[in-house]
């Protein structure tokens, strides 16, 4: 059978504050601008997941969407949706930029994926900016 890709888009709402402990307050403000405001702010993130693999001859699928949804729900949405990202253990030592969130989601999903190869994770922070990671 042929190799194809199955894609799915999920939304998660979370807050964050961009602040690097290694920088001074002035440097943080200069670097992150309003994203450094002390009490944080939030986004409706869109997480796009693309999984590649052989199309199963019996089901016609690369991955069963119900299994993928359940995995993403448990590994990603339950963890990050309606949370403050700065308080997640993953972001204790790194700034929760969307670059770092994209990598974190990729790494978490790669471990948990039911079937197929994780091709990429794309995280859209707003309609005008998005980030993609393919594990390289």
């Amino acid at each position, binding site marked *: 059978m*042929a*190799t*194809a*890709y*199955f*894609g*799915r*888009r*999920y939304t998660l709402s979370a807050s964050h504050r961009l602040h690097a402990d290694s920088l001074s307050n002035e440097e943080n403000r200069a670097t992150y601008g309003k994203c450094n405001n002390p009490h944080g702010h939030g986004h409706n993130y869109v997480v796009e997941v*693309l999984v590649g693999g052989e*199309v199963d001859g*019996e*089901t*016609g*699928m*690369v991955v*069963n*969407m*119900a299994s993928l949804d359940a995995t993403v729900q448990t590994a990603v949405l339950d963890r990050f949706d309606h949370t403050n990202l700065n308080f997640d253990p993953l972001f204790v030592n790194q700034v929760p930029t969307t670059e770092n969130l994209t990598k974190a989601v990729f790494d978490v999903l790669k471990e948990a994926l039911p079937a197929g190869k994780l091709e990429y994770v794309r995280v859209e922070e707003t309609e005008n900016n998005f980030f993609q990671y393919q594990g390289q």
Partner: protein
Amino acid sequence: MIELTRRATFSASHYYWNEAWSQEKNEAVFGRCARRNGHGHNYTLEVTVAGEADPVTGFVVDLKWLKDVIEHEVLAAYDHRHLNLEVPEFSEQKLIPTTENIAISAWKRLELAVSKAGGARLSRLRVYETPEIFAEYRGEK
């Protein structure tokens, strides 16, 4: 090399059913998609071709030509049809019209026509079943 993408939409109905399985197994694996009276979607097709821009026209391919090819080869067969019952690659071969299989089948319908255009080749084909669910095929065997 430049990639050029054209979108098109079609509306069709389908259901998921493996003839070799019991009703129970079909319902367990495919859930609501296994309902035998079918259901429908507004599909969006994204057809990407790759090539070099022609030095005279500046085109990789003429978009009007690509639009017509998509209409002749894919939309004429899929639009406002029941994929399981009326489209030969699914009805005759008992191929389940999953989003993945629709992407592969649409690729097969377009590949020859696109290759006849000269420099361009089919590079990627995406089928959105809904804005949140899609499949992609890149011609990999």
